[in-house]
Every structure is written in C-alpha cells, then in structure tokens.
C-alpha cells in the first residue's frame, strides 16, 4: 500500500487524524481519547493489516510527551507510525498490550522511564528499575548527580 | 565381656537412641531420618548375628523402600521444614503410660523366657536354601504365603497406577 492509500484508509477510520509525510514512513497523529478504538480498528482492518508492532517508545518534548508506535504489516510490509501527544504532568493512555502482546513489556519500560500511565495494563510495575527508585530517567529534566555521564 | 558383646551393646544403644529421636523430634523430616537410622541399626544387628540375607533384605525393603517412600510423602504433603505444634499434655501423659506398660510387658516376657545357650557354631544359611524353602510345596514350604504376598503387592501396584492415572489430565 502506498502512503496515499493508507491515508485514505485512515481518514475513513478516524477523520480527525492528521498526517506528516516528511519522514521515511507515514506519521499519523491521534488524540489520546480516540487512540484505543483507532488502534483496534487499524489492527483489525483487512487492508491495513498492521499485525506487527516493531517499536513502541516515548519522546519527551519538555512541554509534552509523545508516544510513538511503529506498526507494520507482515504481509504487505508497509509501515505506519502512530503518534499520540500526552500531557506531561499527568500522562495517561490506554494500553495496547492485548492487541499487540509485545507492547506489554515495552509499555512497562516506558512507564518507568517516562512515567506514562497505561490504563488497563494487566501488570504495570517497575520492570528495570529498583523498586524504590524515584524519578523518570529518560525525561529530559532527570538529573542524577552521581551516576550520570555528561560530556 | 568380649568384643562381640561390646559391639552388640553399641548397636543396641544406637537403635534405641535413634528410636527415641524418631518419636520425640518435632520436625517430621528428622523423625523420618531417625527412623531410618534405627532400621539400619536393626540391619546391623542382623549382620552381627550373621544372618546376612535377612540383614540385606531389611535394608532393601525398609531403608531403600519404605523410608524413602515416607520421606517422599513428607516432601509432597507436609510442610516439612516447620516444627510441629507441641502435643497436648494429656497425650504426653498417656503416651508415657503406654511406653511404661509396653516396657513392663516386654521385660516380663524376656525374664520369663530365660534364654538358653545354643551352640556357638556360626549360623550360616545358604541363600539358595532360603530360595528353595520359599518356593517349596512341601510341609514346611512357603510357596502359599509367598504367592499371597505377591498378589497383595500386585494389587497395591495396580492401585498406585490407577491413582497416578487420575491426576493426569490436570497436569497436562
């Protein structure tokens, strides 16, 4: 599928979605409120067939957080990047780990590194950091005077 | 007192001591181990008496078989590491009474029996003799009890298999 076809398809599913085509793949911006049903629909859509999530991460833009989901189809090999802006003070988003199982560990990682709260995640605990750790290491304002390497 | 008697008293003391530990220990695993040593001591007594075959069978059946079975069932069912609760006082009193009654009874029997000295010839039975007796159909043959025990064991084995089969679908 070309980017144009994907755009048409996605606009059918969610008219409010906006696009950005500057990168390698098509970027889709979605509101957090519409996010969950949008993801369900693009997963189950026969033409889009985005069955493979190869990357899930978050970017801290200092004013807000952006969740980035890289999705791909194992049959037709087109890729779509879904981005969701989150409030930095109270980042909350629905989980997708029942749609793509790989998201479970990735979401836990994002949870502890960025403090994003994934609603309805079955087991949202610290995965990597020690249990008594305070702070979100991958946020831009995180400072650790002892362990951080600065050049 | 010669070496033989000293060895006898050593073995006897060992059996009694481990026996006491077996009934008095409050950790069930320790009891089982003490029971095991007690049974091994009895096998040692048989060796001392030169009835080697019985001694070996004692070890195979009781130590190798039954006690291992007991230990396994302890592993599988009991919380083997924890101390058991202290028994109630009435139970302690009555068990002491039972022990004393048993001691009195046995002491009476022994003193009445009055062991007569038998010849000091080494008591040596060929194993083949035992085998022949076991399967002989003559007046003093043991084939009937032997076969009856075999049937019992077979029934027990089949029972075990049936019990084991039942739990199979659960565990996948």
């Amino acid at each position, binding site marked *: 599928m070309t980017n144009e076809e994907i755009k048409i398809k996605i606009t059918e599913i969610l008219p409010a979605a906006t696009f950005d085509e500057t990168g390698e793949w098509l970027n889709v911006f979605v509101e957090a409120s519409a996010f969950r049903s949008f993801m369900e629909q693009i997963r189950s859509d026969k033409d889009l067939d985005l*069955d493979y999530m190869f990357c899930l991460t978050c970017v801290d833009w200092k004013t807000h957080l952006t969740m980035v989901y890289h999705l791909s189809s194992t049959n037709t090999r087109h890729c779509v990047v879904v981005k969701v802006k989150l409030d930095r003070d109270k980042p909350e988003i629905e989980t997708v780990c029942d749609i793509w*199982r790989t998201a479970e560990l990735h979401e836990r990682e994002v949870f502890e590194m960025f403090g994003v709260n994934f609603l309805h995640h079955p087991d949202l605990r610290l*995965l990597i950091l020690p249990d008594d750790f305070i702070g979100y290491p991958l946020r831009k304002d995180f400072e650790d005077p002892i362990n951080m390497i600065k050049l | 007192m010669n070496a033989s008697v000293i060895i006898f008293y050593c073995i006897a003391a060992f059996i009694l001591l481990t026996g006491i530990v077996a009934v008095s220990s409050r950790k069930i695993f320790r009891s089982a181990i003490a029971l095991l040593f007690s049974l091994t001591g009895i096998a040692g007594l048989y060796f001392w008496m030169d009835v080697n075959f019985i001694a070996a069978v004692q070890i195979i059946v009781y130590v190798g078989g039954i006690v291992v079975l007991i230990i396994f069932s302890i592993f599988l069912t009991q919380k083997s590491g924890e101390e058991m609760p202290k028994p109630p006082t009435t139970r302690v009193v009555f068990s002491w009474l039972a022990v004393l009654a048993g001691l009195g009874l046995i002491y009476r029997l022994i003193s009445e029996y009055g062991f007569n000295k038998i010849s000091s010839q080494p008591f040596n039975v060929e194993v083949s003799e035992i085998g022949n007796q076991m399967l002989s159909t003559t007046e003093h043959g043991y084939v009937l009890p032997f076969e009856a025990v075999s049937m019992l064991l077979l029934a027990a084995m089949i029972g075990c298999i049936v019990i084991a089969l039942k739990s199979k679908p659960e565990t996948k």
Partner: protein
Amino acid sequence: MFEEIGTTAEGDLLINVGPQHPATHGVLHLVLTLNGEIIKKVEPHLGYIHRSIEKMCESLSYRQFIYVTSRMDYLSAHINNHACALVVEKGLQVEVPLRAQYIRVIMDELTRIASHELWWSAMSMDLGAFTPYFLAFREREKINEIMEETCGARLTMNYMVPGGVMAEPHPDFQKKVKAFVADFKKTLHEYDELITGNIIFQNRMKGVGYLSPEDAISYGCTGPVARASGVKSDIRKIAPYDVYDKVEFDEIIETGGDCFTRYQVRIKEMSQSIRIIEQLIDNIPDGDFQAKTKAVLKLPKGEFYQRVETARGELGVYIVSEGAAQPYRIKFRSPGFSNLSALDHMVRGYKIGDFIAIMGTLDLVIPDIDR
C-alpha cells in the same frame, strides 16, 4: 524485590532463576512459578545491568554514540554499529563507497556466524553436553582473530563509522576469511554429527516450546525465533541495506515452531552466511573505505529509523534529531527484549528442563535486553 521467595497462595513453588544462574548466561532474573516440575508462569525482572545507553547517547555526538552500542548486544557488536552508522548516513544522506559496503557485510556475516556458534555452544551446555562448547569456541576463535587483526579488538570492534569503515582491512583479511570459510564448511557437518543427530537431544527439543506464527508476530519476535515459526522477518530481505540486495542467499523459513526448528534455523543460517561471504570476499571492489564527512556531524531536524538484522533478530535504531550535534532522543528496539516477552507464553505447562531448552533456543543476550 525478593518478597516473591516462598510459595504462592495456591501452594505453588516460586523459585528465582537468576540473577546469577548458569542457564541465563548473564544477570537475568526470572521468577518461576512451579507446580512440582511443571512451570505455571515466568516473570522477568530486568535491570541488573541496565546502563541506560539511550540516555547516555543523548549527550554523545553522532560519532561517539556508535561505540556505546557495541556494549548492547556484545555478540553482534558489528551489526549494532552498522545499524547506527546506517541511521546517521540516512540522516546525512551520505553515499557509502562500495568497498566499505562489501567489507561491512562480510564483517556482519562473520559476526553472525560467531554469535550463532556461541549460541550453539552455550545451548548445548545448557542441555548438559559440554564438549560442543570447546568445538564451537575453536572456530569462533578464528573469527575473533580475523576481527582482531582488522579492527584491533575481539569483541567490541567499533569498526563501523558514519560513511564507511574505520580503516583498511588487514592485508591478510581475504586470505584468512577464505581459509576460515573452507574450514567452517567441514566443521558445520561435525556439529550436526555431534549434537543434531543425537537422540537425547532430539527428544529434548522436538515438540517443546511451540510458538505459533500469530503469537510470534504478536509478541514481536524476530530473527530465528520468528522464522522457525514460519514468519518472514529477515530485514536483509525485507528492507535490504548496503549490498544485501546484490548477494544471493535464502531466508531460512521453517514451520515447526518448536525448539528443534529454531535450532535448525540457526544452523542453516550459518551456512547461508558462509554463502554470502563466499560471494563477496573475492569481489571486494577497489576504492575508498570511507566517504568524506564533516568533522562534526549534525543530523537535520527530523526522525530517522533504521532496521537491521542482527544475529538475534531485528534491531531498530530510532533517532529524533533537533538539528544539534547530539541526538535529541534515541531508542534502540532490541530483538532480545521482544523475544523475551514471548518466553512466558512459550514455557507454560512445560518442565524445568524444557524451560532451559526454550531459553537456550531464544538466544538471549542480557545486555541487549537491559541496554
């Protein structure tokens, strides 16, 4: 963290495999819920060697950060570096000279063979066979020697730089690689004789740890794990980089989905790697080994993503650039992390011995998971 020790409410045994355990090959901590010998659940506890490489990279320049990535999946250090070099080149739109591309691919494939050999030896040792360890290390040593001559290091090579490779390969490079290839073809046969055909080994592996194609995709499994379940996931075929589109090789796809299939996929991949090396080693073109780049690299504002196929699967490097000399945000999508997430699904209902076999065929490298 250790309150799990003990038993669960249902009376199941909880045991900690790791952080120090012979079968995890590193500091991986897994909590197993056992009913007798049957595994009911596996829960990973990560982070024992987490160095936060992603955060570290945010303060390193585009030339520097590549060297940190050798320490992620240290068994395919070349391929990690390759991915980083490629993503920087993508951002700068640099054309890499053909000579460098050839050398890079040969190095990648040698690394893949070395990594698979280490996997083979370690997995055999997990299953209780000790001798394969030494057989595989004998061959791996030859690769390490080649690496050492050319890159100056044996494990964390740091040979790839944005725009090409760091230096000319050693004059003996071609000769040695060819000698190794000729040797290795015979040795691969020896491996099969020793382990693959062994009846105990086959009984341990066949039908164990089944992973269906749907699950493999859903759990994001890549590399040999996915390919053994019949999922096409080889990035070298899907999105060829450097000269992978010019060489002939097969993507090994098997449909068994069990441990033995995963084992076979890796063994066959080694011979495919040999095939790639054979096609390239005699035809390395003349020319520069490095494209001309500026002293200080600055990627334009934007997002760049590069996927490569490491020995363990798909490695993704995601860079968000604000136009500075350092990346604004960098994310490594490591194959081990996703493959690990399928572990719980795969081992349920199997025995401890099977768990070891499944762990072995997942081929986890802990720094790759923890980053």
